């Protein structure tokens, strides 16, 4: 157990390490960092990704691990659509709606069947992935950018799950529901700005 904790801490420290930027001939270092910062720099992305983790923690097993395993793959599908230029209207509305609906699901402790939860999260994942795919900065290494934003998204899920583990206590349930309300309110703000 101690070995696992040490390994996990080491992995976390490595993920947070700053780039040495030693060789940036083609923007490789910048590509990975840029991709990693992309979901984090957008508060709409942060809210929705944390909400996925919170909802997964509320739903418990197997949703708590099915959602973080499936989400990156579906998000990558959306990213692929963005890369190849397939038009997808209303991306910003979709992202704002994801925060509203996921936040509301956490607030009311909605417990749909796993398939329904996975489909709902999957639909939103496409919008988020599409936004990342279309916003690849010029001159960046596409593979490293992709790896960066996939890893960052997974880390945000992990943050949501970690917060959601307090769900086992009564005060924790209230805290998680309050967090859902906050996510929902943030989503409404972004929806307002999108119009």
């Amino acid at each position: 157990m101690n070995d696992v904790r040490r390994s996990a801490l080491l992995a976390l420290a490595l993920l947070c390490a700053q780039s040495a930027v030693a060789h940036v001939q083609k923007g490789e270092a910048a590509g990975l960092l840029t991709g990693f910062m992309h979901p984090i720099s957008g508060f709409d992305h942060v809210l929705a990704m944390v909400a996925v983790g919170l909802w997964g923690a509320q739903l418990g097993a197997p949703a708590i691990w099915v959602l973080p395993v499936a989400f990156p793959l579906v998000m990558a599908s959306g990213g692929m659509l963005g890369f190849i230029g397939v038009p997808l209207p209303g991306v910003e509305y979709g992202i704002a709606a994801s925060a509203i609906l996921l936040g509301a699901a956490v607030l009311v402790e909605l417990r749909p069947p796993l398939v329904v939860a996975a489909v709902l999260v999957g639909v939103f994942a496409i919008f988020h992935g599409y936004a990342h795919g279309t916003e690849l900065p010029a001159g960046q290494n596409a593979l490293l950018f992709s790896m960066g934003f996939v890893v960052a998204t997974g880390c945000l899920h992990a943050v949501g799950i970690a917060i959601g583990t307090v769900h086992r206590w009564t005060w924790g349930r209230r805290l998680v529901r309050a967090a859902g309300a906050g996510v929902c309110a943030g989503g409404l703000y972004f929806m307002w700005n999108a119009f």
Partner: protein
Amino acid sequence: MRCRRWCRTGAFVGISFFALSANAHLTSTGMGPLYDGLMHFLTSPEDLVPALGLALLCGLRGPRYGRAVLFALPCAWLLGSFAGLGAAPVVGSGAVSAVWFLLVGGMVAADAKLSLRASVALAVLLGLYHGFLNGTGAGRSASAAITVVGLVSAVFVLFALAAAFAVQLQQHWARIAIRVIGSWIAASGLLLLGWAIRSG
């Protein structure tokens, strides 16, 4: 006692005066072909990530799989590299790299119950393909073979460390975390495929 201390100090000072140049700034000499090969593997995600994914997959399957592939992968990589040394330089296809990411990452995410033979076969295919590409890019100089040795050494060490890490994980949540990493690898492969399509 004091005499011994003075002798040691004198020896230290004497050796310091005869120290050779450290050649710390190796802008002209480089680190040498062995380290060039080693660093090439560690800084090439197209090579590193599928090997890492395979290591995690074998680790999830157990020590038998890890032990078998630990030698199969580097040997195949070495064979492929030496085969590539005599060939004209070939640029790897983004689409094929994406397929490797999807295949290996998908199997890790699904915790696929591959047989031992299938695991070894996959490792041999992976090693031969990537090794051949590395070999064609290593050049035709005498140091190219040393570069290949450095590269294959890095493959061996990375695989050993990653597979050993995955094998010793007993907790359910830890194995889930490995599968999540697999989904990240597969997701990156999907995106790379999209980029390959866009680039034509």
